[in-house]
């Protein structure tokens, strides 16, 4: 663990390894893309279910 920390600090000693290496931006970007994909799939599922429920109600009438 200490060796890993030392190696990371040596690699990016100036700005800190998480921000200085640009990893923070990559992680943020990937997480936002996953969230957007999840939101889109849930929204589409929600809309399709609403359509199905509407069609089902009309069938019953």
């Amino acid at each position: 663990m200490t060796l890993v920390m030392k190696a990371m600090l040596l690699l990016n000693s100036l700005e800190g390894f998480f921000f200085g290496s640009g990893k923070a931006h990559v992680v943020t970007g990937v997480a936002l893309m996953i969230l957007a994909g999840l939101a889109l799939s849930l929204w589409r599922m929600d809309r399709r279910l609403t359509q199905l429920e509407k069609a089902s109600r009309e069938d019953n009438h």
Partner: protein
Amino acid sequence: MKGAWNWTWKAGSILLLGYVILRGFGTPLQPGLVTATPSQLRIGTDTIVLAAAGQPFASEDDAPADFHVVLRAGDQLLQTETVEVTPHSVRLSVDVPATLPARALDAFVFTPAAGTLFLGNACFVEEAAKGDIPAAVRADAPEERAPQLGFSFPYQPNIIESIRNLLWHVPMWFAMFFIMGLGFVASLAQLRTDSADWDMRAEAAVKTGLVFGLLGLATGSLWARWTWGAWWVSDPQLNGALVTVLLYSGYLILRAAMGDDDRVGRLAAVYNVFAFIMLVVLLMVLPRYTESLHPGKDGNPGFNSYDLDNSLRAVFYPAVIGWGALCYWMYTLRLRMNRHAYRLLSR
């Protein structure tokens, strides 16, 4: 009006989680000392480099004289001379005496902008005899200065940057508790009324809760690997979480095994009530009676009032609401699917 509110809270949950991601990964960590090199000092003049993680605690233009470093042995302080300062390290020269009150030395770095940085057991002097630090090299405690850092997350030894996982791991478990609680209420109502709708609610809650339980286990395992050095340790909290997830998996197996049997609703409801009681016992009661590595349990208070500071709270609470609302959204979708399938099969 109802439709507008329906979309508002759903969009709100996504926006909150977007904020959590941006703030959670975009906020710098307060600086903290990580290592001292070398860890073994010799009697006489020696040089130590203290390395820090997190945001810089100094700029390239800062004068080394503005950074006071003292080493503490027992209850006495040993003076040092700061030779060089970089944004993430400080090099110091120290006259190690032949006598020290303790062989382990703690390091304190007093910085102009980042307050006081501390590293316990930073280095050792194996050759030192037990005794007082000679007056010539003994130091007085430098004046404490308040840190002047912007919005930043607290530095915690061992946890370091992984403190950001708090915004994922803990709210996911909270969301699981919340939705399994809904399932528990639905099962009680099902037992009282024998209604198929309550049964469908319970089933939707368990299926959604399991997703969040598995996500909680995965994020917890990743965190354990970083802080404890192992993907899984035999800990009452961790084992309790795994047993809980397995118990709820048993609920789905029970339903699948019984198929179209008329009694599936009642039996599953009884099982779900039992599973929720076990969840409370395994995750909230038993771990408090035993030693645990997990924060918040006996022997390890973890994220308490001074760890979870206001900057972390400003992101943690939105994360709890965001993940909870997302979980509820997934639950409503699952429930509507169950109801639609039930209507089709009832025709």
